């Protein structure tokens, strides 16, 4: 089979294309992982609250719960916070005299263990069972991969083509 003389160039183009696709796949994999975590954490939370409400036979007082979505700012107790608020409460400005951390609600749910430890690879067999039960069937293999900490290898082909 004769190859066109520019085959080396074509190989290089393909190599670039291959790298690009690998990058996109990696990015989409972590996106998928995050969405799976969100789904599991949210469903777990809803289930937990449903059980608590059923067993106590009443919803918790409305002033003791915070509905999603929300954001948390976490700082030292000693931090002085200077806050200006517009009259209509549409605008806020906070000044801190010390460092702070911002967490979204999903991060909070993860820290509460609602993602079954999947986010940190600390998922027990029992956790994994729960997690798998909370996603559609097509996603179950991914949940297992995440529990084993190996999802990032799922798609990356084993042997890079050498030059």
């Amino acid at each position: 089979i004769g190859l066109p003389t520019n085959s080396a160039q074509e190989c290089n183009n393909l190599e670039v294309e291959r790298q690009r696709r690998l990058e996109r796949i990696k990015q989409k994999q972590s996106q998928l992982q995050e969405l799976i975590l969100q789904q599991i954490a949210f469903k777990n939370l809803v289930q937990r609250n449903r059980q608590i409400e059923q067993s106590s036979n009443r919803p918790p007082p409305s002033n003791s719960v915070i509905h999603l979505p929300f954001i948390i700012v976490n700082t030292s107790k000693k931090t002085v916070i200077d806050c200006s608020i517009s009259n209509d409460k549409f605008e806020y400005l906070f000044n801190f005299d010390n460092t702070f951390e911002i967490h979204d609600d999903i991060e909070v749910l993860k820290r509460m263990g609602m993602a079954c430890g999947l986010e940190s690879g600390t998922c027990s067999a029992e956790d994994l069972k729960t997690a798998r039960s909370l996603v559609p069937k097509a996603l179950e293999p991914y949940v297992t991969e995440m529990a084993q900490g190996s999802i990032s290898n799922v798609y990356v082909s084993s042997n890079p083509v050498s030059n």
Partner: protein
Amino acid sequence: STVESSSRYQMLVNECQELLSKEQQLDELLHMCTTQLKLLTEESESQHLGYVTCQDLRSIADPSERMLMVIKAPPETQMQVSDPNEALQISLKSTRGPIDVFLCPDDSSGVC
């Protein structure tokens, strides 16, 4: 040699093809996941039950050392955090309604 580069070429073609179908598979899963999550959060029961308690919040940070501020803002609210080298500042701007901010109490009153 020509034979070598020909086989390398073929390998690359195959791999690109394989990666393409894997990416398509991922796209489908991403689409499914996004739709699921959207439906889930729009469901009235899960909207009703999608909450954390003050106790939950206290459990994620040591209440004797940390202070937690809760921000509840309407969709599309903009949050800007300054460069920490210049200032320790957060600004919030909403266009669709007032923003609620409160501190998570560290006592056990259970009231936020």
